[in-house]
Every structure is written in C-alpha cells, then in structure tokens.
C-alpha cells in the first residue's frame, strides 16, 4: 500500500427521525442547524412538521397492542438489551453528549453511564411494578377483588431541554417499561444524542413504533400532539412554564394524563428515581368476581 499523502476525510452521519422502526427524513424536507456548546456546527437535524408528529402517533398506536400485550418479562429483557447495546456504543454517546452539553469527556461519560444503568433499573421494574402498585383487595363480601396496573396507551414525551441524554432516557424508559408506546420530542438545542438513541433502539429488539423520536421546534410539534385525539398522555418535562400551561389546556380536550414539568437541575437526573414516572402513565383496573360459598363449615384441618 502506498503512503497516504492527504488526511483521510471522515464520513458525516445524516441524522434522521425514528418513526415506526424506520429512519425517515422530515416529510417537510426541512432541517435546522445544530451546534455544540461553543457554537460550532455539528449537524443538520430534521425539523419535524405537524405531519411527522401525526405519522408518529399512527406508528405508536399501531405498536401499542403488541407491546402492551408482551409479557412483562419480555419487556424487561428488551430494556436490558438496550443497556447492552448502549454499553457497546458508549464512546459514541460520550462524544455526542460532550459536544451537546459542553461537558468534559469524564463528565459526559458519567452521564452516559448513568443513562445505561437507568435502562437496567427500569428493565427490572417491568415485572415488579404490578406487585408494588397492584394487589388483592379484602372487600367486605364474598368476592375476589384484584387491582392491576395497565399502560394508558400512547404517551407524548417532551424530553428535557438541558439534559440531552440522561434526562431523555430518564423520562422515556419509564413510559415504555410499563407497556406504553412513546413519541419523544428531543431537546430542541441538542437533539443528536436522542436521534442516535433511535439507532440503538432499532437494534435492541424494541419493536418498531414503540419509541418514535422527533427533532425540531418543541413549540411547533408539541401543540398538535397535545391536542391529538389518539394520544393518551403527555409528559411536559421539556416545556417551559408558558408552553406547559398551553399544552395542559389542549390536553384537557380528551383528558390526557399530564405529567407537569418539575423545576430540576442537571444533578437531579443522577438521583435514583422513584415510581412516579411509571405510575403517571398507568391505569388501575379492578376486577370483581363472586367467590360462591361452600356451606358454613369452617376448616379445622
């Protein structure tokens, strides 16, 4: 091989949306510039339209039956698989998070490690949440009475604006752990780690449509989703106060479940979460059944 007299040119990645298990560009053909913390250009990200948002709802609805119907064990294994795949692409995400958030490599690595562990944490929850929030009720009558949590349906997630990856994973994983399907609006300024996560999900046995990732202007895509009649819930983590109120009003039209934004700093995402991000998107179903009677004789055996 002859010696190279020029520096090899690396290949850029075209960042695309992740919808229905596929990687489309925005149907609008629009993109916007994404820069690092110092203002250097990183990539052109798709600028999603309302139509992209509606397509994502269709994909999420289509995937809901299968995902909600999968065994909790199966969902747990798939979420764990996400962690396994992320571990293998750790360096890529460290680089993307460092660029996106202007962090040192070691600080970005801490974010990525915590995000991987968060997938593991929620993988373990899939088959336990029902045992913690459900159970038999000792009603005063001859009835068997059992309450079980069920996923609410299609959930729109506004990813946190400041924590491009750990924050994103922390709001997305609990939604799908319990069997919901999700439409994620990536953080507006730094959507690249979120768009790359789509590539991980696509290779982790997560069925297409369970997670759909859009990039663009939160204030443009969120309102039609908050008003969409086939969306069951919305997590407003990435909305500011004004937008959050507007979306909550729109969500009231079909009584979407709403998780309001909490004022959090970035350190917040490192703390071990509770169950509230799961229970926010669960319905409780209580089943009654008569127990009949066998005569009065008590057991003396």
């Amino acid at each position, binding site marked *: 091989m002859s010696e190279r007299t020029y520096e090899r040119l690396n290949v850029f990645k075209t960042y695309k949306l992740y919808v229905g298990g596929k990687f489309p560009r925005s149907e609008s053909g629009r993109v916007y510039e994404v820069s690092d913390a110092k203002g250097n250009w990183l990539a052109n990200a798709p600028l999603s339209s309302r139509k992209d948002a509606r397509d994502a709802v269709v994909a999420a609805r289509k995937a809901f039956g299968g995902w909600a119907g999968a065994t909790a064990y199966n969902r747990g294994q798939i979420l764990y698989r996400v962690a396994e795949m992320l571990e293998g692409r750790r360096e890529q995400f460290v680089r993307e998070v460092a660029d996106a958030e202007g962090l040192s490599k070691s600080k970005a690595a801490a974010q990525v490690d915590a995000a991987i562990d968060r997938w593991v944490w929620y993988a373990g929850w899939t088959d336990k949440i029902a045992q913690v929030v459900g159970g038999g009720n000792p009603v005063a009558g001859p009835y068997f009475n059992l309450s079980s949590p069920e996923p609410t349906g299609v959930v729109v997630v506004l990813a946190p604006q400041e924590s491009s990856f750990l924050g994103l994973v922390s709001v997305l994983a609990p939604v799908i752990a319990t069997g919901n399907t999700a439409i994620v609006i990536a953080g507006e300024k730094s959507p690249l780690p979120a768009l790359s996560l789509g590539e991980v999900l696509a290779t982790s046995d997560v069925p297409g449509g369970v997670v759909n990732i859009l990039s663009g202007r939160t204030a443009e895509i969120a309102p039609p989703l908050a008003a969409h009649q086939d969306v069951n819930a919305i997590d407003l983590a990435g909305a500011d106060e004004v937008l959050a109120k507007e979306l909550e009003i729109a969500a009231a039209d079909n009584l979407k479940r709403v998780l309001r934004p909490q004022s959090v700093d970035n350190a917040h995402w490192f703390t071990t979460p509770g*169950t509230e991000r799961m229970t926010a998107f669960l319905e409780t179903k209580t089943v009654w059944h008569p*127990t009949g009677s*066998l005569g009065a004789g008590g*057991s003396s*055996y």
Partner: protein
Amino acid sequence: MASAPTPAPVSAFASAFEYAPAPESRSVVDIAPSYGLFIDGEFVESADGRVFKTVSPSTEEVLSEIAQAGEADVDRAVKAARKAFEKWSALPGSERAKYLFRIARIIQERSRELAVLETLDNGKPIKETRDADLPLVAAHFFYYAGWADKLDHAGFGTAPRPLGVAGQVIPWNFPLLMLAWKIAPALATGNTVVLKPAETTPLSALFFADICRQAGLPKGVVNILPGYGDTGAALIAHPDVNKVAFTGSTAVGKEIARTIAGTRKKVTLELGGKGANIVFDDAPIDQAVEGIVTGIFFNQGQVCCAGSRLLVQESIQDELLDSLKRRLSTLRIGDPLDKNTDIGAINSEEQLARITSLVAAGEAEGAERWSPACELPSAGYWFAPTLFTNVTQAHTIARDEIFGPVLSVLTFRTPDEAVAKANNTQYGLSAGIWTEKGSRILAVANKLRAGVVWSNTFNKFDPTSPFGGYKESGFGREGGRHGLEAYLDV
C-alpha cells in the same frame, strides 16, 4: 369402578407411527472426570480428600467424581462467605443487580449445555430441562436481579438489611432451578451463600460455579459444597450461618427445625406434599386429563407439589379414567436425551426402592393397580406410570408422599366433601381445581389449606409468583416479592 381393569387400548395410529429416536447431542457438554468443592472462588479438594461418584440414572454410567465436603470444608466455606459478605452487602444495589443480570444472561447463553447436563445427571427428559428448568432458572435470576436496587419498594421498610451468610441445602429433583430459587434472592438482598447440592445431582451446581466466574462475581459470594446429608447437617448447624434455607423431605425439615432451635437463624423450609387435584363434573375432560398427567408425571412425579391424589367427582369417574388411561398409553418412556421422551428415569436406586415399596403397600392394602403396557430400559432406574383406583383416605398411598409417577384416585360427591378430603393430609403445598365455574374455583380455593392452588391448569411456575406450603409442607415463600423476606432482616 364397575369395570375390571382392561389392557390399555393401543390405538392403531400409535403402533403404525412409532417415533424414530431423536436424541439430543451430548457433545454440547464437556464433563470433567473430577470436580472439587467451590470455595472462595476456587475449585479445591476436600480437607479429608473424600470423593463420591455421580451417575447417570438412565444408564448407571459414572459421569464424574466429586469432592465430598466435610465439616472442615463447611467451616472454610462459611468463613469465605463471611469475609465476602462485608463488601458484597455494602455494594450499591444497582451494582449487585448487574452481576445478577450477567448471570441470567450467561445462563441463557449456556442453556442448551446446562439442559443436557441436567438431563444426564438427573434423568429427567430433555424436553423438560430444555423447556421448563432452564428458562425458569434464567428468568429467576433476571427477576431477582431487578429487585437488588429496589428493595425499599418491596414493602419491608425503607432500608431492609441482609442477614449475612445463608446456608442452603437443595434437592435433586430440580437441581439448577432449586439453586436459582435459593441463590438469586439471597444475592439480590446482599447476602452471601454456601450451597449444598444433592449428592445424586451435584454437576449443574458446579457448572454454575463456572458461570459465577465468567460473570466476575467477587470471590466467596457463592460457595458450592457437594456432599451427602451430613454435609448439609454441618452447614445448617454452623454457628456463623445466619439464614437456613432447605428444600427436601418433611422428615429432614423437622430435624433442621430442631437443630436451629434456640439460635437466631432465620429459616425457610420447602418440604413434601400430597397435592389434591380436584375434578368437578363440569370440568373440560380433555383439558383436565392433560392437567392430571402434567400434575403427576412431570419429572416422573418427583415434584414436591405434584398432584398425587386425584379427587374426581363420582358421576364422571368412569369417563375421566377411561380418558386418562388412554392418554397414559401414549406416554413415551425411555432415553431422557430423546426429544420425544415424556417420562425419564427415576433419579436414584434409593428413590426407586422407595417408590417400589410404597406401591407394594398400595397393593397389599387393597387398592387396584394399573399401568399402561410399556417397555422399560434394562439399565438404569425406571418405574412405569402407575394409577391406583379403589383408594381410600386411610391407604398409605393416599397419605404418604411417594415422590414418583404414581397417582392415587379417590372420589367425592359434593364440593364440601372434596375440600374435606383434599385437606385431610399433613401436607399443604399445592392443589388443583378443575371446573368451568369461576365462583366455585374461588370458593374451593378459599377453603383449601395449600400454598399454591392451580385452577384449570397445574404445575405452573413463574419467578414473580410466590411458592411454598402450609402445615408440614414447610414455611416461608420462595419467588415473587414475598421471596425477598426470607433473606432480609425485617
């Protein structure tokens, strides 16, 4: 029953379409000629150099020579576990979880190898090790892995503490599955363990030691001590053991309860059973027959929760028994490694002798014995599927746990009578109810003194579902959220 027992009706199809042998390959498993004890992360010889042989019960072939742990080895292993406890229990739960997830994944990866190994050492059909034992083993580790960092959500207070060193003694009927039931919750909660596998089935536990090594589990967290009853007794009696977990016979369970009396050792016992499978007149017969067969012939009936007493409503007795006998005539008995085999070998000569003598007692006491026509292999330990009718509650075969492929059939007329008969036993592990009527299922289940009640199904297991007995079937629950309590200071 009115009619005399007739030879099993062999259908024309059965004889016309014999199954060709379909043996699973042994080449996926490499059994070493000898194995040591696994103490503090190393395989070592026993202090006194004693060894014993483990044989394949289907052929009597010697599989390997195993170091036999004595009292000195028990002490060494408990010390190693004690030393490891300090760091292991101090690890964040999320890190312990990741070790257990690794173990679960490696078990999944090596499940074909482990299934063949288990079938060789235990004698049960490959169909069962492959489709039941191994998937459940991996699932159990996966489930408890997820609890390791969620213990404050489990309902035992905000920061439940581990107990320390767990001494665990397991039986030979589900060697690797019983290991999983013991080790997974113990490690998840931050305990360290010393485990004694049964003397007839030590191999899968020793292979598990290698899996711990592959997973990078810290030394001393898991220690494996093959041996006989005296090894188990020494382990349970060791003063530095904080928790005793035992699965096995009720007689040994009582001995353990006496041994630990007056100590602070926490104990769980999963003992024998004499499960009643109750079939009402509205039950779907074909489905019930399948459930009865699963209930008593799964793992050659060597199952503590076996449905060994069939309680059938009098009005459908003839129909049900005809159907059941027809089904039993189609069971295939033989080479456990054959993928078509339904019934494998009895685990040991000793167990075979016990089954044989209890069956003789059944005949001597006047019950009517029936088996399908079947040819048993000449080498190894075998017992044909057996059914007894004309059984009363006073018969030995209706009272004692046989732990073999032997079903005792009793009848009843009313639900109350069914419940009374089902509960008329020292045991209380499992029961089955077959009826189309939901309210009857729940009413009967409410009255049964048994830890697991299956309705319109039998022998179902899941890591999320607690398992354990009432009365002399032992106490404590394994599996599910409940299974954590046995390993926590609550």
